[in-house]
């Protein structure tokens, strides 16, 4: 297994080392190229401040101020016919800019259009809940809180949704190690048996491909099995394993291949 390397600065260093490499960008087109989007953007701009807007892959992306999110989504739902909130989550840009990007993916069934509303919040800042507008935001905002630690003000039940209630840490942060921190590694042991039992149960074995030839606690050499904890010398006798004892079992018939019928025709 590869050794785990801390990925705290994963966003700071360039992924490509080629000096002249230009990472491919999805082409952006101005909002004026689509008249439906242009009208929607004008309606939003009339009431709220829009920092940036463009069309990408036939979807309009609108950047707004974080304090306007409820108002913008209400306007889009009530007046612009964007009646569905299909997705809502956050993107971790903490290492790069010390802030989160929040996106709301909106769908209009009447116009057959999708708009992505985006905004940036500082690390530690809370957002306004849009649960009163869209019921789908209920679980999405709980998931955002669970995975990133971003709270939604005005949410009726701001608790973790995927991880247990007594979990510590936000697993989708880029600083969170994939295999868990100290708390995660001992979570089930601490909770069920208590911290004092850590020495008895032992740390997690993360390398599932590791096989210790001389370990008889966790491994058995097929055909040469020994009782648990026996010291392995390498000269273990052959130990033929069969599902039934040689002498037969009381009132249970043993399978004999000679008496059996092999059906070759699968379409019998």
């Amino acid at each position, binding site marked *: 297994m590869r050794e785990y390397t801390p990925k705290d600065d994963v966003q700071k260093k360039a992924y490509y080392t080629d000096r002249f490499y230009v990472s491919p960008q999805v082409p952006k087109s101005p909002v004026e190229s689509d008249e439906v989007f242009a009208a929607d953007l004008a309606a939003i701009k009339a009431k709220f401040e829009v920092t940036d807007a463009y069309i990408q892959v036939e979807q309009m992306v609108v950047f707004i101020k974080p304090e306007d999110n409820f108002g913008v989504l209400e306007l889009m739902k009530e007046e612009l016919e964007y009646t569905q909130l299909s997705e809502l989550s956050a993107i971790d840009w903490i290492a790069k800019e010390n802030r989160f990007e929040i996106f709301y993916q909106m769908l209009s069934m009447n116009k057959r259009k999708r708009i992505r509303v985006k905004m940036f919040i500082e690390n530690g800042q809370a957002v306004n809940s849009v649960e009163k507008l869209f019921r789908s935001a209920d679980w999405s905002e709980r998931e955002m809180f669970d995975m990133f630690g971003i709270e939604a003000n005005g949410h009726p039940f701001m608790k973790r949704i*995927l*991880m*247990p209630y007594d979990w510590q840490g936000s*697993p989708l942060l880029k600083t*969170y*190690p*994939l*295999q*868990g*921190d100290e708390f*995660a590694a001992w*979570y*089930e*042991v601490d*909770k*069920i*048996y208590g911290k004092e*039992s850590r020495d*008895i*149960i032992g740390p*997690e*074995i*993360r390398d*599932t491909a590791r096989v210790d030839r001389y370990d008889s606690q966790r491994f058995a050499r097929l055909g040469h099995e020994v009782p648990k904890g026996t010291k392995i010398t390498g000269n273990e006798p052959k130990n033929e*394993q069969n*599902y*039934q*004892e040689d002498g037969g*079992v*009381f*009132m*249970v018939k043993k399978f004999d291949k000679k008496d059996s019928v092999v059906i070759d025709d699968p379409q019998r």
Partner: protein
Amino acid sequence: MAQHKVNYTQDGGLPVALTSIDKIVNWGRSNSIWALTYGLACCGIEMMASGASRYDFDRFGTIFRASPRQADVMVVAGTLTKKHAEFIKRLYDQMTEPKWVISMGSCANTGGMFNTYATVQGVDRIIPVDLYLPGCAPRPETLQYGVMLLQKKIRANHASRAQKAKRLM
């Protein structure tokens, strides 16, 4: 008066089989392994297939029970998440002695491919396991063979003595 008559003198004796208490108790135990309905992930589908008509667990006396209080063996079929770990312990504690555990599939054995923060790396960190079945997911034949090996393991024990309760610690 009975309609049929038993000829007690044919076949050289009475219709009585002589055996030891050990054997008769173990025969009963090993041929009525009631399993707890406990499918956690995709291995549960294979476990259900083992119980259905094609593979037919009933002929081994293995009947799935919906309550841990009526079950003898817990087949941990699937990925055990850390959130669920306390419940597997609670269900295991509710089962009556003697009880056995089959860890079915890679995820239950070692955590499998879920080498992440949210997965228990092997159910033997929570409860003692009698039998590990390899595979992702194991075929119903594997589970059947595992149950037959478990029957053999039960027969090898002394039923008359008080069984030492299995505890992880």
